[in-house]
């Protein structure tokens, strides 16, 4: 997984072999992960390594297990067998250690899930104050800087329901960033948005990617994948069917399943 895999003379990921994390230090490692919902085998022997600073887009048909995969990484879903490690350490099962782990793994949901009874500013400061134990003043200062960065600082005293979907999702990104996470999981962050608001959210995500944030993004936004992703992971029926560099994946997928899927989402 480390330097041995890298061809001599390459200091970064080789262009024809981006499906591997290459020289990056592995941050999240999933090994032989299996999960069932009753009789349904939702994750089938999933192996996936996400390098520090890498942006991985997960794509695949509805019900293929993309959300489940994402949610196992911060243990919102438990797994039956296999191991998941963050920074080399297995995910803790419960208690304080699990809460700490979750604070290191940000999550952005399709439906935003901002705390409905708290103002925008309070949404962003809650975690830093209660989990990172920052003083309110320091937390607010950080939060305002983050809200400025995602372009919603002027809304800080409003409640979530008073903001547009795009604004709410940008606040949700700020809330995740406020925990200073090692990796952020995005589960279809733009699918609940009106079309005219998709770009404002993708722009924030693209700039995060450029700044070196490690990201796992479940999305069908191919523009984003091409522009910002290092790797596309294609899932079907709970399995990772194909992993490739975005351009290669979209122009010339190697698996039949991926070709079939792309033909369906590309036909407009």
């Amino acid at each position: 997984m480390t330097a041995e895999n890298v061809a001599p003379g390459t200091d970064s990921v080789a262009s024809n072999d981006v499906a591997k994390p290459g020289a990056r230090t592995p941050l999240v490692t999933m090994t032989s992960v299996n999960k069932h919902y009753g009789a349904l085998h939702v994750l089938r022997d999933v192996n996936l390594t996400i390098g520090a600073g890498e942006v991985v887009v997960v794509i695949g048909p509805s019900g293929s297990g993309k959300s489940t995969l994402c949610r196992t990484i911060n243990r919102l879903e438990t797994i039956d067998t296999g191991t998941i490690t963050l920074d080399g350490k297995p995910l803790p099962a419960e208690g304080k250690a699990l809460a700490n782990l979750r604070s290191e793994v940000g999550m952005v949901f399709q439906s935003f899930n901002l705390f409905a009874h708290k103002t925008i500013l309070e949404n962003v400061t809650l975690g830093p104050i209660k989990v990172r134990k920052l003083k309110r003043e320091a937390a607010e200062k950080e939060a305002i800087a983050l809200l400025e960065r995602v372009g919603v600082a002027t809304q800080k005293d409003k409640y979530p329901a008073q903001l547009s979907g795009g604004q709410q999702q940008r606040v949700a990104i700020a809330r995740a960033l406020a925990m200073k996470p090692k990796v952020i999981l995005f589960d279809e962050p733009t699918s609940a948005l009106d079309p005219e608001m998709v770009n404002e959210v993708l722009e924030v995500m693209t700039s995060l990617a450029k700044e070196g944030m490690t990201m796992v993004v479940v999305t069908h936004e191919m523009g984003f994948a091409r522009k910002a992703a290092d790797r596309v992971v294609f899932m079907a029926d709970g399995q990772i069917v194909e992993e490739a560099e975005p351009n290669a994946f979209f122009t010339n997928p190697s698996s039949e399943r991926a070709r079939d899927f792309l033909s369906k989402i590309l036909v407009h």
Partner: protein
Amino acid sequence: MNVIIDNFDLFFQGFLKTLGIGLICMVGSLILGTIIAAFRVSPVAPLRAVGTLYVNLIRNCPLTVVLFLIAFGLPTIGINQSYYFFGCSALIIYTASFVCEALRSGINAIPAGQAEAARAIGLGFTQNLRHVILPQAFRTAIPPTGSVIIAMFKNSAVLGVFGVSGDLLGNAIILTGSRGFDPVPVYLGIGFFFLMITIPAGLVLGYLERKAVILR
């Protein structure tokens, strides 16, 4: 009707005492009910079992039975207190089971994503309850909890019949019993003073309900 004017003192003191009992029991049952509700949604199975058992036993028992069990049961295990203490305890224990269920309906009405988002930023179970779930559940649960509290003010009448002295019902029994007044005007007066508690309580409730609306 002269009986009310002539004995206004007695009515008014009864009113104050009944109001006092109601307020103490309101605070007590809101606190106890919240604790039991936290038990019922806890990830710890034994706590959930305790919460479920509590609610199913207490809520399905008549208040008078709870009252007698406490008043006669506790002294046999060496807890000797006033009727006032026993009466309030029984009313709190009884009402808490209803408060718990009202709150739990409030908790269940919160979209699952709220608790999930709280877990995702690293809040533990109690932090999640305290900062995300309960503040929203309290607001959604204001109407049913309010009905429970108003019912409790009325149920407190049982305490006077049972022997707590000085409240509205206790004084009514003195007036119609040893003093021989006609029960009808006496109980019309008692009814009036109960309304003086429950109608304003309903108004406060309506106000809280309007104020606490959560936009979603």
